């Protein structure tokens, strides 16, 4: 009985614990199977990744090979084409090429731009010759009255009016220099301009110092042989000097940033007036000219532009008599406005263009006299105005026609005035040689000096240039 019970209990135990034993074994097995499965999956993924990588490599290599084969085929075809073709050259240059040492470009070096100009400045020369007849007839020495009107330099004459020698070049990575030497009527040589320009100052500024044509107005900065007519307009001659205004000084300019990307350049200058400037009293001592100019440039269309400028200058002027002790300086102030419209179609630039330019000047000048003690008295203001306007039309590739009208009072005399009308034609033989025929009729109105008749002149001008002259600003 006991044995039966024992056996029964053993069987019961077995029955009870066997599943756990089996299950426990099964867990271990499952676990191992799971681990094996994971390992196999990882191996599979790894092999798949490697296979994909190799397939990509094979694809790339195949593509590269195809490209190389294609390139080789292209090269072969090109070689065949080039070897079949006889050498074709421009017949005009065949002889030239055979006689010239090779100047072919070499990689990485030759640009063609400065090969023969290394370390050399640009040298240019401009000759300006005039021949004119005037009526009523008068000699070159004859003036008019007390000097309100400058002597008429257009009396009958033929002359090499001006020869200008230009020396221009780069000084270093930061600055350049420009010199213009001039000789008038075969006389002594003087400096038209001579200045150094620093191009890359902080804040986008540029500065120059030396003798230079001032930035008052538009035409004043252009040298006389290069203006659109034979001579400067009356307002420039009367307000700024017979040959415009050029002075020793310092000039600083910068572009004014704006959201419209308009070219707007501000220039400030301090100048020391020369003692013998025509038409204006000489100065001495501490008198300086303070000048400001604002230039704005607007492209209207692809073919037309407008430039609008504003100018201002002021200075104290003192009596140039060293024996007089002035108790008060007088002030001379000038303002100017300039407007230039240019139409020049890009596709027909050689043949068609139209230019209209106008400048107006205003002058306020204090004048007075001094008593025996040097005290100023009888102070009064002289307010004067002047303007010119011209229009020029291009008729053909080489022929231009234009007309200019001047009106001007005088800074030292607001009672007198003069006006002139000047039609002209210009023929460009090439960009280096120019002929111009100009007629000018001038009338003068004077309270102090009666003028019975106007002046007429017919002038032929020949202007020619040698060497490389830096293009002038637009």
């Amino acid at each position, binding site marked *: 009985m006991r044995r039966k019970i024992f056996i029964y209990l053993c069987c019961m135990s077995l029955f009870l614990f066997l599943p756990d034993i089996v299950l426990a074994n099964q867990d271990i097995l499952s676990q191992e199977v799971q681990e094996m499965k994971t390992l196999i999956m990882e191996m599979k993924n790894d092999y798949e990744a490697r296979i994909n990588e190799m397939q990509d490599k094979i694809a790339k290599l195949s593509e590269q090979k195809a490209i190389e084969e*294609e*390139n080789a085929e*292209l*090269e072969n*075809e*090109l070689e065949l*084409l080039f070897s*079949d*073709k*006889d050498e*074709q*050259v*421009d*017949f005009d*240059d065949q002889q*030239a090429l055979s*006689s*010239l040492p090779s*100047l*072919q*470009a*070499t*990689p*990485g*070096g*030759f*640009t*063609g*731009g400065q*090969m*023969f100009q290394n370390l050399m400045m640009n040298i240019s020369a401009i000759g300006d010759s005039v021949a004119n007849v005037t009526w009523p007839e008068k000699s070159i020495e004859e003036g008019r009255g007390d000097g309100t009107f400058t002597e008429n330099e257009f009396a009958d004459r033929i002359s090499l009016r001006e020869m200008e020698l230009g020396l221009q070049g780069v000084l270093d*990575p930061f600055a*350049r220099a420009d010199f213009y030497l001039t000789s008038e009527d075969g006389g002594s040589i003087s400096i038209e301009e001579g200045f150094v320009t620093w*191009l890359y100052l902080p804040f*986008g500024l*540029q500065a120059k110092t030396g003798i230079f044509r001032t930035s008052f107005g538009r035409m004043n900065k252009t040298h006389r042989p290069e203006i659109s007519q034979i001579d400067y307009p009356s307002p420039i001659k009367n307000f700024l000097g017979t040959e415009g205004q050029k002075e020793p000084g310092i000039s600083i300019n910068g*572009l004014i940033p704006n959201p419209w990307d*308009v*070219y707007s*350049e501000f220039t400030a200058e301090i100048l020391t007036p020369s003692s013998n400037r025509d038409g204006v009293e000489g100065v001495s001592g501490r008198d300086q000219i303070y000048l400001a100019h604002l*230039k704005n*440039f*607007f*492209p209207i269309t*692809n073919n037309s532009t407008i*430039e609008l400028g504003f100018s201002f200058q002021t200075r104290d002027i003192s009596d140039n008599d060293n024996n007089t002790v002035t108790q008060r300086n007088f002030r001379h102030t000038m303002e100017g406005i300039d407007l230039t419209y*240019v139409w020049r179609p*890009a*596709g*027909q*630039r*050689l*043949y068609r263009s139209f230019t209209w330019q106008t400048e107006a000047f205003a002058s306020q000048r204090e004048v007075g006299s001094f008593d025996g003690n040097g005290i100023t008295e009888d102070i009064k203001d002289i307010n004067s105005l002047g303007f010119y306007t011209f229009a020029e039309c291009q008729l053909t*590739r*080489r022929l231009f026609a234009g007309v200019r009208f001047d009106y001007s009072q005088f800074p030292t005399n607001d009672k007198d005035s003069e006006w002139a009308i000047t039609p002209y034609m210009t023929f460009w033989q*090439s*960009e280096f040689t120019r002929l111009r025929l100009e007629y000018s009729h001038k009338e003068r109105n004077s309270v102090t000096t009666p003028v019975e008749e106007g002046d007429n002149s017919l002038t032929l001008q020949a202007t020619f240039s040698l060497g490389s002259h830096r*293009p002038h*600003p*637009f």
Partner: protein
Amino acid sequence: MLKGKISKSITILSFSIFIFIAIFNSGNAHAKKLKIITTSTDLKSIAEYIGGNKVNVESLTKGYANPHEVDAKPSFMVKLRKADVFIRIGLDLEQWAQLLIDGARNSKIRFGSPGHIIASVGVDLQGLAVRGGAMIDRSLGDVHIYGNPHFWLDPLNGKIIAQNILEGLKRNSPENAGYFEGNKKRFDREIDTRLIKWMEKMKPYSGTNVIAYHRSWPNFSKRFGINVVGYVELRPGIAPSPAHIATLIKRMISEDIRVLIREPCYESKIPKFISSKTGASVLTLPVSVEGVSEVKDYFGLFDYIIDNLASTFEKQEITPHD
């Protein structure tokens, strides 16, 4: 109610900030592109190909304008002031360029700086103006003593131009060097592929004599076998005289020259007159991209020139030969 207003305000504010950030970032992304100014539309086209979406390119001149006669406008200085790279032809073609560089006040693009690229370095030059060793002077007209500057009219020079531009872009944007090099390789393959077709099209007319208005074609002549045997301009830059036109007419009749090529920037009156006397066809061919409206890129320039030459030769019954 108040809560609703506040949440609405916050939503609007958040949306606005998001828009602002998006615009600011897109502006920034745009600003990261290299700003390139070129002196010709051909350089613009090649620079756009090499630079891809990493550059913004603008040309100072129009494709139909005379490249020798360009006004150095102050408005160009404003564009150059903001440029990272300036690409020019060189060979004294752009005498006006130095004025613009000085006025731009941008030290990145001045000569010798990384942002200054001259396209003519290493190109095959043609059209030197010397006569039997005599001195070069202006009696030869407005000559370019370093070689004819219209060298881009040889597709193989186009590859050299592209190489110069590539080197410049790599200097200025080294992080995109790989991208630029990939584009350059594609450019070269495109040139090689198309050059074969162009040369095959021109091969039958190899050796055909033509007259041109201006000396724009020496490099094109060398590559494609067309002989330019005379010019309407007496000398480069010198307007033709009646005596010269009369001589040219006689020559065209005696030598049976039946095609006169005129560039769009030159007048048409004299070529038409010559055509009326000789029976020759006047063919207006652009020398630059966008010289006519159909030409949109550098490849299109050669497609246009060669297609029109071939059709004109055919029209004039110029016999093709092998």
